[in-house]
């Protein structure tokens, strides 16, 4: 079973988690000033990288907290997990950073 490290609870089985989509996407402060294209970009367009991807996870059957992870979408390897609100960590070879 895939093991995911919750920043609060430590290493836990994948079963206890839910995926939450790409991380670090800030909701526009004033949506009414955006063009339709800008709003659609916020709602729908994601980076979808082949490689390192920062994404949200929730330890739903554990502490219940959302946190962020950098996962390699090719190997499914979790490079690092970190608490919500923290910036994406520096990782060697991370081209999105």
């Amino acid at each position, binding site marked *: 079973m895939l093991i995911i490290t919750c920043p609060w609870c430590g290493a836990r089985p994948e079963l*206890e988690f839910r995926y939450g989509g790409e991380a670090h996407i800030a909701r526009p402060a004033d949506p009414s000033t955006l063009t339709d294209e800008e709003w659609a970009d916020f709602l729908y367009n994601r980076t979808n990288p082949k490689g390192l991807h920062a994404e949200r996870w929730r330890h739903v059957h*554990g*502490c*219940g*907290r959302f946190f962020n992870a950098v996962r390699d979408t090719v190997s499914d390897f979790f490079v690092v997990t970190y608490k919500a609100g923290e910036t994406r960590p520096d990782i060697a070879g991370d081209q999105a950073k």
Partner: protein
Amino acid sequence: MLDTPSSAGHSTMPVSADPLASLASGSPRRATARLTTLDRTARLVFRGRESAIGPAGEAFGVALPREACRFASNEGRSALWLGPDEWILLAPGAQAGPIAAAIEAATAGLPHSLVDVSSRSVGIELSGPKAAFVLNQGCPLDLGLGRFPVGMCTRTLFHKAEIVLSRTAGETFRIDVWRSFAPYVWSLLEEGRRELD
């Protein structure tokens, strides 16, 4: 066992009846993994900001543990860490009302929430040298004493049901499960115990 006779017909049982009464009364004895229902317990979920955490624990009589996945006990009452701002408070045999009133008085004006969830779940105890083995039939955690020591608690899964699992002694686990899932969890624990014959 609770006060509802297991011989009562299902339709005549009160809504608050023990959902495990009939299953528990027919449960075979197995000393290597004893399975029992726990007495009625007052349960309160407390969530709060930093300023409210200390006073809440003081009013409850158990300091709320700040270490992840740990519980603290004092005079029969326990406070279980469920998340960094979330605890479940257990007071076996007590009424939730006066406890809630005491905590509300101590945390007045401080940002928090306190919810009485006494009837939401039921308690099951599993104990004996094979208790961890039986739990691991449906729980994916490492239940070795080094990784899941006495005093540890956590939400996790038992098969497809969410449970709150705590280790109260070396060979004793307490399971708290939402009452509608309780027969499912109990029956699968029984299935695990059949391995021991």
